[in-house]
């Protein structure tokens, strides 16, 4: 890939980095990342990956922009209320960086479309807001052999883990979704807007590290933070031999629609 003069200029701060350079920027520019959810986490992930010049950015979300989203979903602006989130996101990405090819899917991520969707991408980012879909993304990526970043936020807290084929997965640590309503969602319990930015930018950095092969990913480690005390902690997560999807005797060998998904989505 030959960069034009304006691209060399645009990406100069990446090119200057010893660990990235022109070669790393080429990898970013040839990279394909799917962001599931164009909400609180998806917004910063998409903004930073667009600015970084990721070659193809897929974004999937079946929702439209609601006024209550604007407190944290920084890719959507006030005039976007009522517009499909994926269209609102696509418009911003194209303004930030016309080099990026945006593929907008105005639908939800389901057991039926999961494998098809992830197959066209190098790295997947979970920016969803409910457990059934988080577990579905995990299962699809583990079974489909795709690297992905898990992210979750609530109130003043966030957590994230990166999975590569062969490393611990989300189920290794969390096994199965908690009973419905045992754990409140952001729409029930609230979330400090900036928390979405704190966690989403970590996920974006992981995606860029993955594409460029830079540094150590958050594999076999769960990073969590509590912003009230600004305490960050990383816990080692081992690949769990009893994991239902990646363990020694997996019981999950295909994808199934989570029953809870529909009602969770309606509540948003």
């Amino acid at each position, binding site marked *: 890939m030959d960069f034009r003069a304006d691209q060399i200029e645009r990406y100069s701060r990446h090119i200057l980095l010893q660990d990235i350079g022109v070669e790393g920027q080429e990898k970013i520019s040839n990279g394909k990342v799917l962001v599931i959810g164009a909400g609180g986490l998806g917004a910063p992930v998409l903004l930073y990956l667009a600015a970084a010049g990721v070659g193809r950015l897929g974004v999937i979300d079946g929702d439209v922009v609601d006024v209550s989203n604007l407190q944290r979903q920084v890719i959507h602006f006030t005039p976007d209320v009522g517009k499909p989130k994926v269209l609102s996101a696509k418009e911003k990405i194209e303004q930030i960086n016309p080099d990026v090819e945006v593929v907008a899917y105005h639908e939800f991520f389901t057991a039926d479309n999961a494998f098809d969707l992830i197959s066209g991408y190098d790295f997947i980012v979970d920016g969803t807001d409910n457990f059934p879909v988080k577990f579905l993304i995990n299962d699809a990526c583990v079974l489909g052999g795709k690297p992905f970043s898990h992210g*979750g936020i609530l109130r003043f807290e966030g*957590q994230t883990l990166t999975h590569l084929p062969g490393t611990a997965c989300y189920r290794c640590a969390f*096994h199965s979704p908690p009973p419905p309503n045992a754990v409140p969602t952001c729409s029930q319990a609230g979330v400090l807007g900036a928390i979405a930015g704190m966690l989403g930018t970590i996920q974006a950095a992981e995606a860029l590290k993955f594409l460029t092969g830079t540094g150590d990913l958050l594999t076999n480690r769960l990073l969590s933070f509590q912003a009230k005390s600004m305490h960050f902690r990383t816990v*080692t997560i081992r690949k769990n031999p009893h994991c239902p999807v990646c363990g020694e005797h997996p019981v999950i060998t295909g994808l199934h629609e989570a029953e809870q998904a529909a009602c969770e989505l309606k509540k948003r």
Partner: protein
Amino acid sequence: MSKIRVNGEEQEITLPLSLGELIKQNDVSQPNMVSIQVNGAFVFREKYDETSVNEGDEVDFLYFMGGGC
């Protein structure tokens, strides 16, 4: 008194103690809200009451966080 570490911080406990009791002592109102590792190994939710805590154990409460939107 015996010493263990809970989420990286030292805690003094009186043995014998089950994981289920440790959860209560740590004010985890709903055990459903956490996933637990003892010395880096995942413990099934159904086994909290029959799993005993030992001197020097490293216990991690990993909280479910489902938000993102």
